[in-house]
């Protein structure tokens, strides 16, 4: 259980960071989405992992329960990340329509993909 959660957080983060560093709108959006999944799973796990336990306090007895607060936090974080991703798509679309390319913080000289395409056309 711990191994699955930990490795999924790690893989999602690694993939997210790699995609963000691609510096193009579409991979960056996907990368940020992966990063937000990783953050959500991490946040969820911060209340300790426990299987088959209710997320409420038992009034009587020493029943095992799982911490409900990280679940609420994760829910909030999911909603915010979802809204932010939608907004990012809109801003990226606006920038793409205005500028005609999807580079993020990359000069034309660094744009390897474009150079190859130019060479191929020529």
């Amino acid at each position, binding site marked *: 259980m711990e191994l699955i959660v930990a490795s999924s957080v790690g893989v999602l983060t690694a993939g997210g960071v790699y995609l963000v560093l691609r510096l193009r709108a579409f991979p960056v959006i996907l990368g940020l989405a992966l990063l937000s999944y990783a953050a959500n799973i991490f946040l969820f796990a911060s209340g300790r992992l426990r299987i088959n336990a209710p997320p409420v306090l038992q009034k009587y007895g020493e029943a095992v329960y799982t911490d409900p607060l990280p679940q609420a936090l994760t829910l909030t974080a999911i909603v915010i990340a979802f809204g932010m991703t939608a907004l990012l798509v809109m801003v990226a679309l606006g920038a793409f329509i*205005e500028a005609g390319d999807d580079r993020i913080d990359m000069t034309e000289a660094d744009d390897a993909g474009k150079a190859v395409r130019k060479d191929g056309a020529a």
Partner: protein
Amino acid sequence: MSHWIIAPIILPALLAPLIAFVMRYDIVLARAASFAGALALVAIAVGLAVISADGAVHVYDLGNWPAPFGIVLVLDRLSAVLVLLTAVLALIVLTHAAATGWDTRGRHFHALFQFQIMGICGAFLTGDAFNLFVFFEILLIASYGLMIHGGGKVRLQAGLQYVVMNLAGSTLFLIALGTLYAATGTLNLADLAVKVREIPIEEAALIRVAAMLLMVVFAIKAALFPIQFWLPATYANAPAPVAALFAIMTKVGAYAIIRIHSMIFGPEIAATDGLTGTWLFPAAAVTLAIGAFGVLGARRLMPLLAFSVVASMGTMMLAVAAFTPWATTAALYYLIHSTFAAAALFLLADLVVSRRPEGDRLDPAPATVQNGLFAALFFAGAVAMAGMPPLSGFLGKLMILDALRDPQFMALGWTAVLAGSLLVIVGLARAGSVLFWRSTAVAAHVPAADDPEPRPASPIQIAPTMAAIGMTALLAAFAGPLTDFLDAGSRQVFHAEDYIAAVLGPQEVPEVPQPEPDAVEDPVQEEG
């Protein structure tokens, strides 16, 4: 318990959707509502500052759930003075945006503006770390809209970078909060302060990671080295009134560092002893150097002003990194000053740039209308920003130098502040002489037939810039009472026992809720 504490959040939160949905096609109505909101916010903020002046920490339990189980808003001197600063700045910027017609160059300026104010006030007032994240997101999502207000290729591309940068920062914030929760089991600031004190040094690894992750997150907001690179691109390409409003946004990051790293991970806490200052102080010095060299090397006016904001953040964080009450007082005074100085320069830059055929490029150009007036205002703004007498920048830097007399900080701190100030003075003097002085030597501009002569700025367009410069003069004139107030505020931050007692009640709150929550709740209500 005073309900006024939540008013700076509720008022813009109600006004913004009203403006967006009811007044979207009527700019006059939207302006009137936005102004009424800004004026009411100033009145509320003054009231809150008066309430907080009694020295008690006022707590507002949302839904009357007792802390740490419910969410709390906390009003002390520090948050009151920053809410007041936000309200006054909002009024100045709003006047400029309406007078120059910036608010008609795109949709929903006023609604986004109110949401931004809501997020900033909420971040200053909240007493819960996760709520701080939520308010950060609110102010950021509004700032994304404001940043690309008016559109245009360069602005949208810069806006996209800004959004990506901050989304990555938000993800990091969530991971930091998760680490913090895993280590302590709470996210209430007062409860965190209690829990972190009890962590022995040998079990402190996780909490130290959380403290540093949080500092990185706030350093992104405060534009500290090595994550300051987003600021010049963003501020230089944002609409000028929005850049003036953004002057307070970097301060939200600085506030969060003061609040969390002074109160929770403070200097005498065993688990995180000296951790933050070790990294923050050199980072602030490098930030100041980058800002100063940026001011010196900038070829356009807007990036020059953006770099001067970076330099002022570096100056301020040098004092914050000392983590003593007096240094924090100096940092807070400089915070208020640099907000108004940066706002004044950005607003003035908007007036000048919109009248120059060369835009904001620092090339000699024929003198435009009202050259003398703009030159005088730029001189005053530059004097404030560079920290020369008689305006408040001088006093702020003097206080910071005084606070950094500790031999541990003095060599690097004094060198950075003094050399940085010199570079900023040279850079601003060069910009001013190119923009206003050498322009009179260039042959008069011959307007083309289809190129209308720029209209002189009306008094209402100049008034916000003058008001912002006037605020720095007022800060200098009333430096004594203000410093006393801020000093009491920073002592409150460093003396966390009052904050903890006000939020959690006088007795220690046990881990599991007891059947009688009233015992915890009542003392809080009596104090409020």
